[in-house]
Structure formats: C-alpha cells, structure tokens
C-alpha cells in the first residue's frame, strides 16, 4: 500500500511541477508582450525625435534663406527707387517746360 501511495505522491508532485512550468511560460509570455509595447514605444519615440530634428533643420534653413531673400528684395527695391529718382531728376526740367508750354499756349 505504501508503495502505491509513494507512486501517487510522485505523480501529484509531477503534476504540480507541470503546472508550474506552464504557469512560468505564461508569465514569460505576458512579460514579453509588455516588452513589445515598451520596445515599440521606444522605436516610435526615436522616429519622432528624428522627424523633429529634420523639421527643425528645415525650419532654420528656410528662415535663413528667406531672410537673405528678403534682404535681396530690399536692395533691389532700393535700387529701383534710386534709378527712378535719377531718371525723374533728369527728365523733370523737360517735363516742367512741357507743362508750362501747354499752360501758356492758347489756340483760339
């Protein structure tokens, strides 16, 4: 009878061990899945940081060259204005004379 009991004990112990093995595997699985979320988040954060860096770079580049474009425009505009003034002062006496001529000539 004792030997029978011993056998049953062994079987029960083996059952228990089996449960533990499976339980451990399940625990490992859920830990692994949690890890999936964590690693995914890490990758996503890296990607975001990379895009952000690219964006910042684009931002500073564009403000740099639009600043210089604005300056060039300013300079061009000033040049145009100076040229106009020069032309006008050259032509002004003629124009004034013309206007006065028309004022003082009467065709009746």
């Amino acid at each position, binding site marked *: 009878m004792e030997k029978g009991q011993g056998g049953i004990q*062994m079987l029960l112990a*083996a059952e228990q061990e089996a449960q533990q093995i499976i339980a451990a595997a399940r625990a490992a699985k859920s830990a*692994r899945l949690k890890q999936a979320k964590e690693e995914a988040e890490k990758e996503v954060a890296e990607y975001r940081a990379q895009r952000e860096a690219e964006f910042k770079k684009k931002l500073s580049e*564009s403000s740099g060259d639009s600043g210089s474009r604005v300056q060039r425009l300013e300079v061009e505009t000033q040049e145009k204005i100076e040229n106009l003034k020069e032309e006008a002062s050259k032509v002004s006496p003629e124009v004034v004379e013309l206007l006065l001529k028309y*004022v003082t000539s009467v065709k009746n």
Partner: protein
Amino acid sequence: MNDAEISKQVQQMVRFIKQEAEEKANEIAVSAEEEFNIEKLQIVEAEKRKIKQEYERKEKQLDIRKRIDYSMQLNASRLKVLQTQDDLVQGMKNAAEQQLATISESHHEYRVLLKELIVQALLRLKESSVLLRCRESDVDLVFNVLDDAKNEYIEKAGVEHVQIHVDNHKFLPPGPDSEGHGQFCSGGVVLASKDGRIVCENTLDARLGVVFKQKLPEIRRRLFGGSGA
C-alpha cells in the same frame, strides 16, 4: 504487477507529464514570440504613420507660410515703387506750379496770354453777357486788353457784340506768397455766364491741373516705360 513494474510505470508517467508540460511551455513561448513581433510591429507602424502625417502637414504649412511671407514682401516692395513713381510725378507738377508764378512777371507776354485766355473763355461760354474775375494785381492789364479780346471774340464767334463785366469787388486770390500757404492764384481769368451758372476757369493753375491730367500717361510712360497705370 510487481513493485518494479509499478515503479517503472510511475516513472514513465512522471516523465510523460513533465514532457507534456514542457511541450506546452514551448508552444506558449513560440506563440509569445510571434505575438510579440506582431504587436510591436503593429504599434510601431500605426504610430509612425501618424507621426509622418503630422510632420508632413507641418512642413507643408511651413512652406505655405514662406510663400505667403514672400508674396507679401513682394507686394510691399511693389507698392513702394509705385508710390515713388507717384511722388516723383507729383513733384514735377509741384515744380511746374512754382514756376507758374513767374509767368505773370513778364508783363509783355503775360498781357498777350491774358487776352488769349479771355478770348478762349468767351468762345467756350458763348454767352452774350459774362462776368470776369481776375487777380487784383491783374485788373489794369485786363482792362488794357479787354477791348482787343472783345473784338477778337466777336470776329471769331461771328456775333454782334458781347458784354463783359469785370468784377471790381471780388478778386481771385493773389499770387503765392513765399511760403505758398493759403489760397493763391498764379494768374489768368475766370469767366462766368451772367447768372453764374456756367463757369470757365481759365486760370493758370486750373490750366496746369488740366494739362497735367491729360499728359500724365505720357509723362509716366516717358519715365517709367511700360509699367505704370
């Protein structure tokens, strides 16, 4: 069965139980890995897509902002140029205005001009009786040329006579003072029908205004080429 056989069977069963458990554990581990990969991939792809869209939108807005700013800049500078053109042309008119005052200083030519202006106004009004107004300083000259003007008009218009009443009470304002403030008149005459309803402003200033408006497109073209309204 004897003890040895029982014991062997038990051991076999124990082994079997353990084996089953380990196979099961293995399956679980394998599925864990699969699910790990799928889960991770899904999350990463979905999030990356969102981020990509977000940044593409940001970059597009940046681009639009840049273009708007530049176009505003361009407009502002075009306006500046147009304003300058306007100012320059106005400056010429002002210069002409200033010189107007000197016309009445050369009496000989001014006298002739006055007569012609009177005749022109008479021809424009075609009235038999008119009111004439001039500067106080010009009254003498006006009376001096009045008869000549009348006769010239009568001849050119083919009328019998004309009545010109020179206003001796109310005059056109005097020439501009040194500062050019207040109302002034550089010369010429204003004629009106007797009832005052039809007026012909033949002052030098009014004439300059008219000429300037007429010649403006030509002046602008000369200065600024094709550009300019």
